[in-house]
């Protein structure tokens, strides 16, 4: 019950955030955005034709009405049709978001798990050679461009110059085998790029925790190192870890990874968003922005609930 009323209150306080985000994006995309009338009317249009197109695009309405329309779309979760393909946007999202999740999830999970693992290892051997090796590799990984990593992995793993183990481009989830063959290289590339950042972050969180008094107490009572690091210290680090993971979720789900999806020819939401930006497909962009804002609010709520769950000192007030 406490949880329920807290959730309601929290979601209510999310409304201004959603309005703020959508208003700013609306101003940038629509108010200052391109006018597409003449792209669509064809040559030598009559004034009637022009007016008709403008009415179709909603350009004849005042800005306030158009923004309120946008809000109505958000509330009803019905974003209309794409301007470039005419496809219903809800159908488009339902088709592409699961693909983006399927592409990004293994890398996301693996990148964070390995990041925490290596962070623990580096923190445990702080200042000694395993730490130096891990942190050195992390720095190298962070300084290589994502693009180069993708191309290098493609050449090494998917081309006839290299091992030629996986398809270079494309997407299929017809069977689990297909899924694995298409998802492996994108996953490896994502992990390679994210791991450095994750490891650095998690190591610093864990090292910070090892300086706490309760760690000295645990040592003074004979707690073995494995239990000390993997249970006592890790549980105390869960708040920053959860925060980092949870707040990257909206971007993993909604924005997808543009580079991954375009370089591997994967029909996910990242690719769709990119194309929408290029063609100025406002309905799609408005839907993506709104969904990201809504996800952020939901994630914030879930994160708070998880805090309560890992740290008894947090109260949901």
């Amino acid at each position, binding site marked *: 019950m406490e949880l329920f009323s807290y959730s309601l209150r929290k979601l209510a306080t999310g409304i201004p955030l959603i309005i703020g985000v959508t208003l700013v994006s609306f101003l940038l995309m629509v108010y200052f955005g391109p006018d597409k009338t003449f792209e669509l009317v064809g040559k030598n249009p009559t004034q009637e034709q022009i007016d008709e197109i403008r009415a179709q695009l909603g350009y004849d309405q005042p800005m306030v009405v158009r923004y309120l329309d946008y809000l109505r779309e958000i509330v009803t979760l019905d974003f209309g049709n794409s301007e470039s393909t005419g496809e219903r946007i809800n159908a488009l999202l339902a088709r592409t978001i699961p693909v983006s999740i399927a592409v990004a999830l293994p890398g996301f999970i693996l990148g964070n798990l390995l990041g925490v693992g290596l962070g623990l290892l580096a923190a445990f051997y702080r200042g000694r050679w395993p730490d130096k090796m891990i942190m050195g590799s992390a720095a190298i990984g962070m300084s290589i461009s994502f693009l180069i990593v993708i191309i290098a992995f493609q050449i090494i793993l998917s081309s006839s110059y290299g091992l030629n183990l996986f398809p270079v481009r494309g997407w299929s989830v017809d069977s689990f085998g297909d899924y694995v063959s298409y998802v492996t290289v994108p996953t490896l590339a994502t992990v390679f790029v994210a791991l450095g950042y994750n490891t650095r972050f998690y190591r610093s969180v864990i090292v910070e925790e090892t300086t706490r008094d309760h760690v000295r107490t645990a040592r003074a009572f004979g707690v073995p190192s494995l239990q000390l690091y993997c249970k006592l210290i890790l549980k105390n680090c869960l708040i920053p870890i959860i925060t980092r993971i949870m707040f990257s979720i909206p971007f993993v789900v909604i924005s997808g990874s543009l580079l991954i999806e375009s370089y591997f020819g994967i029909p996910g939401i990242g690719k769709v968003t990119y194309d929408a930006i290029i063609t100025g497909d406002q309905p799609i962009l408005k839907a993506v922005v709104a969904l990201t804002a809504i996800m952020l609010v939901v994630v914030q709520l879930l994160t708070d609930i998880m805090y309560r769950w890992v740290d*008894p000192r947090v109260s949901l007030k």
Partner: protein
Amino acid sequence: MAEPLLRVRDLAIEFDTQYGTVRAVDGVSFDIYPEETVGLVGESGCGKTVTGLSLLGLIPKPPGRIAAGSIEFGGRDLATASEEELRTIRGSEISMIFQEPMTALNPVFTIGNQMADVLARHKGLTDSQARTEAIEMLGRVGIPSPARRVDEYPHQLSGGQRQRVMIAMALSCNPKLLIADEPTTALDVTTQAQVLEQINKLQEEFRMAVILITHDLGVVAETCQRALVMYCGKVAEQAPIEELFAQPRHPYTAGLLSSIPRIREDRPEHLPIIAGRVPDLLHLPAGCRFAARCERALDRCQTEQPELGEKTASAACFNPVPV
């Protein structure tokens, strides 16, 4: 006299710092006998905590290390013992409690959980046995309604209660030696007295020796049989309490005693203080470390380091305060 429980000889502890290596503890020797309470006193930074930590092999390394000396306990040398060996001693044969009760317990586990963990590890109890034992220990250290408290988290307890929990945890495996590092400094005066009384009472029940680290000579006078006065990483003087308070031999001890405020008829205008500053560990004088602040210093004190005698009452001083 009986065999000492703990025999520390020429203990030296070093830390690597940005500016070079410092010897935080230099040539400290002392014995602790079964069931006695020994005060370890001295100004902030003189090496009390580090000495206490070294007895359990808890010097953070890097940057620290035991550079020399031996710590004999139960036929082993703890200064060179393996981590495995030390782990079986920590919390079972030698326990330590710390200055900061507010942060010394793990905030995300219940106190029962933390106590049961120690009992399960050292006594091999099952979860339910350990829990029963934890509740009993909480009762013995004076926590009201322990069966309910056992499932609470540290932040739900007051500072005094948390220190009691620490004491309960420290005594739960019947240690032979308890190192109490300023256990009451962070508490208010009334709570301080209660916690000290509790430690004293339990010491008799559990028949253990206690090293009480403090900079409060009043506490030492009330609770200890003997005291070691440390100055700048060395033991300046050791003596039974009555002798120490009645006839301090080391000028530093004498200075410390005269700087305790007490309720007396003749209220002095100023509380006497020891003039000068503690030398920096990076720039130690060649002779006695107290020489620069000492009213009784001789020429010899500037060049030679005085040694502490082997006797139960001795001062590391070339020109001790006459009896």
